[in-house]
């Protein structure tokens, strides 16, 4: 048995090079026997064969070619990331994104800074969408009656049924969410055109249908206008959570932020009054926030309108005249709001999120009185982000009730879950086709499931605002056998085309002529490169305000009721529940309540006292024969007559979380008694001809005595310490600092911020020869939206730990947003403070680590060396900011496929070690290497940590504090700059800019600065 190498002497050059001519290799049967295959050789060969087969098996046979690199482009290298501009498909706002691709797969989504709507940020939901791409629970094949089949089979079967419909003239209904892409419209039109009786019905689970209905009446066009918050000097919002979840929150946050210029020579901060029943993200940023019950909000809007009409000397019908503010609303300074709106008319804006056409009519009237049209409200190029028509939806429902629908095709929505429908309604449809990529409530009922692509693997186009179009482009081959809706519909209409062809064809025909570009190719390529294009679309042709429309407003006197109202609202991360199966979003603390993994009944502190319930106990909400048991969350700022509950929970897709999180002796599941996360409240929605309604009057509530612990990341919510424990003078901690616009204006030429100087024992301990990285966070701009938290999670491979671990205060987020309340009389102020490792100059963590696992870098970074960490946790104990996170367990990733979204630049940490924010050191290094390679100096702003990149409010600025010209150095010099716990002399590298409130009081003491 010889394993020695048999030398092969070559007889010709061809042979050496591998090409062995037959005649050079004489056949010697005798020789072959001389080379026996030994055991080792056999094993080697077998190994190679098996390995080779496996490797070959890993290659996906490409179906639709996204142009592979036959010749590797010079600028692209394996191991380096490159970016594709695309459009986010996570909700109907269609923000511009950049897909960070690494080694052929998307690993992170970022905002497209050049996109005219989103201006660079990307919200939490958008960021989290990358995880859904790799979701192994997505349907891998189409289904017929729940069984996996091939597309050919599905197409055949469906075509057969559709042909039948075409012949018989049966009613076909296509039910979708907002699809604002023009190509989709064309394809749908073409598809529906092949049927004698077909209709496309659009609804939005978070409906703005009342707005478009009102505009139909006041301006003759069914539309949702585009609001320009950046042009507004005064904003009054009636229950519109425009910074949180309303229509296009990212766009609104960007433009809201653009209007705030507190550091300018003439400081400018718009005045914002919020009328709302619950505490919303928007309300938390308002200068004046007036809690009011839903009926009161309507009443206040009408009162405000009549006040404005009086100022404008516009006659109004008697029944709309002012009726005076009842005692229950004495805290509302409506006159002040009206005065301020009137003062800045032309630059004022009233928005209303009420799903109530009358209120929207009044809102339009008020805006008309203030001259907002053409300035802060754009009707010529309106938003197309909410196309839903609830009246049509109600019509469909009554058709379904009559059993008159012969075929129902459902795409992009999950009506069986999110609408208050009896399940029999959908079950009774003879042909039900779902395009859902998941095995959800609707696809379970469907006869055919034709799963759509994830938006990161599919071509698509959008037009979120009239005249601004953008493309979605695939960043990788579809992972499963899914197919784009466009392809499915055109296949069934008889045209077998790829989505790419369909879109390009439509763009060539319909959009290119409006682009002003020379050739279609240049237009297409430029749009693909930029991610968007502006078209010269003619205005939609809205008419002037029709006063006659006000006739429709009936007058109702305000009934001073003591009844409780139920308000259903969307949360920032979960919204309508379409992403509730995303673990990142489930574990993202709600910006306001800081609760994860559950929905709950928000009660005002007073109501909770009256009911004698505490947080974590459950209450039973009842109306008629409906009842709902939910844990209690006591919510300061909530109106006492309102119980609010979040939508989007309790969906079937959350059953997957039964086994999430570490498993050990005392571990509790993340799901509730119903086997799901939270409770579905869609049956409490109202669906009438007036549209979807999110309010319900006269509910009953009672204490159950049962408990359902909720997992909140924050247990103490105030800047003040508990009263009975408060030392004199130290009641409120100077962690959040606030100032007023008046104070800034008065002292506009004052000295810049002074920082406390402490004696230095080791002044030469850390010298920073080249860079000293720092961060400045503008608390005034921060809306708490938590985009940065998910960005950080995505960038830094932060695990999800499950509800029980969060409840045990062991969440792993490196970046958290601390939310504090501060109560002054009846007013509840909210402050957000993004908190991450402060990269202290005198870091308490560094001195105490026994094994030098956390050390100071020459660039001011406090580096955590995972390999070296033995896990004594002393560093975390000694951290005054408590930003260090410990790996209590091995946090296995639930979904192995989801590990593809891990960032290869960041180590995945194992059990027993400490981790924390690194200032995205991998990004710093990448930029430094790139610049060194190109032999150029680092530019300010070139390095953006993930949090800064994602921030829609541009509240976070990273930079080199050693460079006096850098933006961060400028910000450090501003008067608003301060550092948290500066008095401990740990020398944090992170600074904060104080909150500015536009309030009448001239000098509210800037808290803490004068503190001893």
């Amino acid at each position, binding site marked *: 048995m010889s394993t020695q190498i048999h030398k092969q002497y070559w007889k010709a050059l061809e042979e050496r090079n591998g090409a062995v001519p037959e005649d050079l290799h004489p056949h010697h049967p005798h020789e072959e026997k001389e080379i026996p295959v030994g055991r080792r050789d056999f094993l080697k060969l077998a190994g190679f064969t098996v390995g080779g087969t496996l490797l070959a098996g890993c290659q996906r046979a490409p179906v639709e070619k996204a142009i592979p690199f036959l010749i590797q482009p010079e600028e692209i290298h394996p191991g380096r990331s490159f970016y594709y501009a695309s459009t986010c498909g996570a909700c109907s706002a269609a923000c511009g994104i950049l897909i960070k691709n690494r080694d052929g797969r998307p690993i992170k989504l970022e905002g497209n800074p050049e996109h005219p709507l989103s201006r660079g940020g990307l919200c939490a939901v958008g960021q989290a969408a990358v995880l859904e791409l790799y979701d192994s629970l997505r349907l891998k094949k189409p289904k017929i009656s729940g069984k996996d089949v091939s597309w050919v089979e599905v197409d055949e079967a469906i075509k057969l049924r559709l042909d039948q419909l075409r012949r018989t003239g049966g009613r076909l209904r296509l039910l979708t969410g907002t699809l604002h892409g023009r190509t989709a419209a064309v394809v749908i039109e073409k598809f529906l055109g092949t049927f004698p009786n077909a209709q496309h019905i659009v609804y939005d689970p978070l409906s703005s249908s009342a707005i478009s209905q009102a505009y139909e009446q006041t301006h003759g066009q069914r539309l949702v206008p585009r609001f320009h918050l950046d042009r507004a000097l005064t904003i009054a919002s009636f229950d519109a959570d425009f910074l949180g979840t309303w229509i296009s929150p990212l766009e609104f946050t960007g433009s809201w932020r653009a209007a705030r210029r507190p550091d300018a020579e003439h400081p400018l901060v718009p005045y914002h009054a919020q009328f709302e029943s619950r505490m919303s993200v928007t309300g938390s940023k308002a200068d004046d926030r007036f809690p009011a019950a839903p009926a009161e909000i309507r009443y206040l809007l009408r009162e405000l309108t009549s006040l404005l009409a009086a100022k404008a000397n516009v006659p109004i019908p008697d029944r709309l005249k002012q009726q005076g503010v009842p005692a229950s609303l004495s805290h509302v300074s409506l006159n002040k709001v009206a005065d301020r709106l009137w003062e800045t008319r032309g630059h004022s804006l009233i928005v209303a999120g009420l799903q109530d056409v009358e209120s929207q009519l009044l809102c339009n009237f008020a805006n008309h009185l203030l001259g907002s049209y053409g300035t802060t409200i754009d009707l010529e190029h309106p938003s197309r982000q909410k196309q839903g028509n609830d009246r049509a939806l109600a019509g469909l429902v009554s058709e379904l009730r009559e059993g008159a629908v012969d075929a129902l095709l459902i795409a992009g929505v999950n009506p069986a879950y999110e609408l208050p429908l009896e399940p029999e309604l959908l079950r009774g449809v003879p042909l039900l086709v779902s395009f859902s990529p998941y095995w959800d409530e609707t696809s379970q009922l469907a006869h055919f499931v034709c799963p759509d692509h994830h938006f990161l693997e599919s071509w698509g186009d959008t037009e979120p605002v009239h005249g601004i179009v953008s493309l979605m482009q695939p960043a990788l081959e579809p992972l499963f056998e899914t197919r784009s809706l466009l392809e499915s519909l055109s296949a069934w209409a008889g045209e077998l085309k790829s989505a790419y062809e369909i879109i390009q064809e439509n763009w060539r025909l319909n959009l290119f002529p409006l682009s002003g570009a020379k050739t279609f190719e240049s237009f297409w390529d430029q749009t693909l490169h930029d991610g968007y294009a502006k078209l010269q679309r003619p205005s939609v042709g809205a008419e002037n305000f029709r006063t006659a429309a006000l006739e429709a407003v009936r007058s109702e006197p305000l009934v001073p009721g003591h009844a409780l109202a139920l308000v259903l609202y969307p949360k920032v991360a979960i919204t309508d529940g379409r992403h509730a199966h995303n673990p990142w979003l489930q574990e993202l603390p709600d910006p306001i309540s800081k609760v994860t993994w559950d929905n709950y009944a928000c009660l005002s502190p007073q109501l909770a006292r009256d009911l004698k319930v505490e947080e974590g106990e459950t209450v039973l909400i009842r109306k008629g024969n409906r009842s709902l048991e939910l844990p209690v969350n006591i919510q300061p700022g909530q109106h006492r007559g309102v119980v609010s509950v979040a939508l989007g929970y309790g969906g079937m897709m959350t059953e997957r979380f039964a086994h999430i999180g570490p498993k050990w002796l005392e571990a509790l599941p993340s799901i509730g008694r119903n086997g799901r996360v939270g409770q579905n409240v869609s049956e409490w929605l109202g669906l009438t001809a007036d549209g979807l309604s999110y309010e319900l009057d006269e509910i009953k509530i009672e204490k159950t005595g049962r408990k359902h612990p909720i997992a909140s990341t924050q247990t*103490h919510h105030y800047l003040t310490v508990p009263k009975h424990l408060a030392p004199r003078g130290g009641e409120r901690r100077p962690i959040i600092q606030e100032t007023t616009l008046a104070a800034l204006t008065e002292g506009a030429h004052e000295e810049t911020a002074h920082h406390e100087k402490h004696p230095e024992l080791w002044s030469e301990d850390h010298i920073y020869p080249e860079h000293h990285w720092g961060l400045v966070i503008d608390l005034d701009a921060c809306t708490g939206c938590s985009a940065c938290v998910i960005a950080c999670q995505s960038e830094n491979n932060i695990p999800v730990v499950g509800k029980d671990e969060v409840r045990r205060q062991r969440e792993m987020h490196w970046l958290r947003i601390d939310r504090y309340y501060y109560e002054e009389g009846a007013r509840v102020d909210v402050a957000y403070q993004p908190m991450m490792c402060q990269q202290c100059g005198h870091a308490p963590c560094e001195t105490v680590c026994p094994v030098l696992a956390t050390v100071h870098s020459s660039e001011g970074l406090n580096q955590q060396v995972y390999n070296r960490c033995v896990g004594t*946790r*002393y560093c*975390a104990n000694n951290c005054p*900011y408590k930003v260090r996170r410990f790996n209590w367990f091995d946090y296995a990733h639930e979904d192995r496929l989801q590990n593809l979204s891990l960032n290869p630049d960041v180590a995945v940490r194992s059990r027993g070690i400490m981790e924390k924010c690194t200032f995205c050191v991998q990004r710093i290094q990448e930029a430094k290497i790139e610049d060194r390679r190109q032999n150029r100096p680092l530019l300010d702003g070139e390095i953006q940590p993930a949090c800064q990149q994602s921030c829609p409010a541009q509240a976070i600025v990273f930079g080199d504090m050693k460079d006096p010209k850098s933006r961060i150095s400028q910000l450090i010099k501003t008067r608003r700059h301060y550092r948290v716990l500066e008095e401990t002399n740990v020398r944090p590298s992170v600074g904060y800019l104080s909150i500015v409130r536009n309030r009448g009081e001239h000098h509210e003491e800037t808290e803490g600065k004068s503190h001893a």
Partner: protein
Amino acid sequence: MLEAREISVPLIGGHKSLAQVTSDVCSAMDRRPTLWWWLAFSIALLALGVGIAATSYQVATGIGTWGLNRTVGWAFDITNFVFWIGIGHAGTLISAILFLLRQRWRTSVNRSAEAMTIFAVICAGIFPLIHMGRPWLAFWMFPYPNYRGPLWVNFRSPLVWDFFAISTYFTISLVFWYIGLIPDCATIRDRSRGWRRKVFGILSLGWDGSYRTWLRYETVYLLLAGLATPLVISVHTIVSWDFATSIIPGWHATIFPPYFVAGAIFSGMAMVLTLMILVRKTMNLQDYITHRHVDVMCKMVLFTSGIVSLSYFTEFFTALYSNNPYEQFTFINRAFGPLGWSYWIMTSCNVLVPQFLWFKAVRRNLVVVFLISILVNVGMWFERFVIIVTSLHRDFLPSSWSTYSPTTIEIATLVGSFGLFFTLFLLFCRILPVIAIGEVKGVLEE
């Protein structure tokens, strides 16, 4: 007058002859174990088993099996560690400092006190090890030459100082104990046969009881006592630096070293009392461990309780006088916050309960003294819990405030440490002379 009478009371009762002393002390080793011993031993073994199971589970699964969280990174683990280190203090104090101070009464208790020290330090040493996220890498705490480039331990970290302090303390205590055992090993060697003769023959290092041997022995003993004396002060001083060098309000206090040392002696003495009262009763050593011994130790407990109480007061005063709102809040919260109950257990056990020892009648009543000694140890365990957990759970940023409750695994680990301690101590009672025969013979009345 009273003092004169006290002095006239002999240290060892019962008018023992030299031979009687030997047979009294060694009889426990000659007899078969009593039923009580077996009962105690099985309970201790059971507790140890529970502890081993819990610790194995924890090491295999993760620190998450403890009730710690992002805010409270230490709780039972370091509480137990400091508690056991504190217990270990009395041994060296009795053997070294009291030896140097010529406190002849120590001879009856020093052997078991030293044994207690060693077992307590073993128990203590386990906790820093298992509290690590990756205990299999614990050797990184040791500054050994390695091939990992310039990686070295962090000499600025109190945890490294701890490592040195405890290992030194353990080594010196063990050597000191062993040196003290040599004459007694020779005694046992001489009165036994078979394997025991061989083993004790080796352990007695060829002791021949000659004048020269005694002379050298006593020189070595004196030198070791001198070496061990600073350790009594240093070990707990360094342990206190684990907290004092941090910046957490409630930890960052200059009073910690003396406060910790006094507390350690306090708890150590209480533990010696607990054990001695038990040993005396169960092993028929009433003549050796007399009321006088108990009385003296009670006075030590009372004295150290005074220091500890003063420290509690000083801490509060410093905080309130500091005008530092964080510091002030920490102390108010310590007493009246959500974990305030632990503070009140601590103060009542450590400040109020020992005050009964002012009364001679109490000091004479062994049942009461026994109860007091146990309460003092409960109080001292809670002192460490209070310092560690109440300081951590609500520090600077209210957003990170949290609370703490132990899991069953943590409780099982604490139980296990007691199991280990008593297993070792019960074995000690069977295998070695619990009273230093040679030294006691020196203090017999003429």
